[in-house]
């Protein structure tokens, strides 16, 4: 099939939806039913009356598949708007991670030093451990986690990506 051919692309989609029961299951289920990929998915309501949620989805596929993903999302009844931020051009992507690191002595000092370089904050500490909060592009978090792996990484929790187009316009 033509849409299975071509280079794999990574796209970040912003989807606004009515905040009704089951809406996330609808979206996630559509991806699995049609064999599309979800690399990352974040969701939270963004209006004062909790009526609309914004979902950020990172998906991978050929350009034809991505076009289908957008069309399939767009036809769903509770979906207000789908924006392909990658296609739109310049946008910012951020992710937050909590990173637990255990160790003592030199390792502890090195962990703090690296955290400073990455502008990670300490949100919990014991005599033998830290929990760092680090925010940034996914690649930055990947790098931070990788470095902490050498020092005493215990566990990682990541939020997945939220994204927004640059400039003054709303999606």
């Amino acid at each position, binding site marked *: *099939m*033509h*849409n299975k051919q071509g280079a794999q692309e990574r796209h970040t989609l912003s989807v606004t*939806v*009515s905040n009704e*029961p*089951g809406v996330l*299951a*609808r979206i996630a*289920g*559509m991806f699995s*039913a049609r064999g599309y990929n979800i690399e990352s998915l974040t969701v939270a309501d963004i209006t004062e009356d909790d009526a609309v949620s914004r979902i950020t989805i990172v998906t991978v596929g050929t350009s*034809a598949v991505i*076009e*289908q993903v957008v*069309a*399939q999302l*767009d*036809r769903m*009844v*509770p*979906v*207000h708007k789908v924006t392909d931020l990658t296609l739109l051009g310049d946008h910012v992507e951020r992710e937050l991670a909590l990173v637990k690191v255990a160790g003592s002595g030199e390792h502890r000092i090195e962990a703090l030093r690296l955290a400073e370089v990455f502008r990670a904050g300490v949100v919990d500490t014991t005599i033998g451990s830290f929990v760092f909060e680090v925010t940034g592009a996914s690649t930055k978090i990947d790098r931070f986690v990788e470095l902490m792996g050498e020092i005493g990484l215990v566990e990682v929790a990541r939020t997945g990506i939220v994204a927004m187009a640059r400039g003054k316009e709303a999606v």
Partner: protein
Amino acid sequence: MPKELSGADILIEALCDLGVEVIFGYPGGAVLPIYDAIFKQTRIKHILVRHEQAATHAAEGYARSTGKPGVVLVTSGPGATNAVTGITDALMDSIPMIVITGQVATHLIGSDAFQEADTVGITRHCTKHNYLVKSPVQLGDIIHEAFHIATTGRPGPVVVDIPKDVQVATAPYRKPGKIEHKSYKPALKGDLKLIEAAVEMLAAAERPILYTGGGVINAGPQASMILRELARISGAPVTSTLMGLGAYPASGDAWLGMLGMHGTYEANWAMNQADLILCLGARFDDRVTGRLDAFAPKARKIHIDIDRSSINKTVRADLGIVGDVGRVMEDMVKIWKARAHQKADLAPWWKRIDEWRAKKSLAYPASTTEIMPQEAVAALYRATHKRKPIITTEVGQHQMWAAQHFHFDDPNKWLTSGGLGTMGYGLPAAIGAQLGNPNALVIDIAGEASIQMNIQELATATQYRLPVKIFILNNEYMGMVRQWQELTYSSRYSESYSDSLPDFVKLGEAYGWKGIRIENMDGLEGGIQAMLDHDGPVIVDCMVAKLANCFPMIPSGASHVEMLLDPSMVTGEMSDEAKALV
């Protein structure tokens, strides 16, 4: 302030406000309050089916033959799960349908209560949309919204799950005004700039073809009229998918017959050789395209569809127009005339088409001893076509023979399960069609295997005195399975013989039907006449050639120009690659 009504009464009021005349249903514990409300009123007629799947197919038959949405009412748990096949069928074939399901009381949801099933979870991916109603206050608006969603845009099934306590609790009901949905806003009018471009492409084409589908039927009878006008002014030939038969008349000059796996030689070759394909409300289904990388290699493609996701899904369109196909064709005709386009000289194209037509790909071998199934359909057509009958089918060889040899001149007369291919569709669909068209001749062309999948519905027709006819092409095989086994698996007929068949004549009589058996050519026309003469339901058991195959055929993994026209073209066993393809 309007007076308070129970949830059950709100449902009835809303359905009446929406013009519902008939609902197909089956009672059960979780819908008892609604059934009590039905008992106390006379405005809506309830048709008691014998299995919930049949309720959904009957609603589909009603919808497809009348253009109005079909309405289904079933209970929770097994009632809802039995309806899932028909709901999926309606989704695949874009049939407007509203399915009301009972649910256990809200405080019991999630507790594995008796006859509890997660209906909204189960039907999420086989509906256009679905709802769980948590309060009677929402109920009226949700019912109206459900109808709006089911009937507009690309039509489809909508499930409304109503817990039993919501049916009993009271709330005020007021008929809502025009529905302005927050996020659901289907496009009707196509982009005029794109439509102008489409007109220019059509006018400039040397080998154009109109490839029409079920979307033209869904766009209403006027869309079929505009299609005929578009074909007339452009001079282009017309082919159709299984779902679109009748939109362009089979008796029309430009008609090439159905395309695809069991389509005609001329339709498939014309698609392959065309320089422009105008796809009108069809979706490049795998049964239509055959091998995708060899599909219509020379053609530019214009795709008009109300569902944006249909465009570029499997076949890349050079020009995609999102909109109601009837409205877009109307604009095309207007622009064509405004620009004073003349019919292009398509004589060389038609000359080639005539050469393909000369193959007579629908011809079948004659037999003096047996009834050829194609001949049975042809005889049925000859005997009935003046009455403009509504034909339903089950799924299999008989369905394809009906599509090939029963010629449709009008829309809404051909009801078949296309996308999902659901055996057992035809009888309940015929019941639904007869209810929507009390004076029409309604015939289910069936196979002896499929008909048994919803045979219990004989009783429904009897109860409501519906004079539907069932015409079984009985070859004692699941014929299409047997045909594929013959073509693909060296005739190893694994489980495809219809063993231990009932005596359909006696079975019909047991349900209060007239039963007729046709055993040979001498009895064919007389048997059909006896069926038509009887003022009531008739089941005809027509014994046909057992090993006849449905040709032409594009085998698995083949392109349009690799059609098999007759059994002599079949050799050996298929490759594993071809076996794995659908």
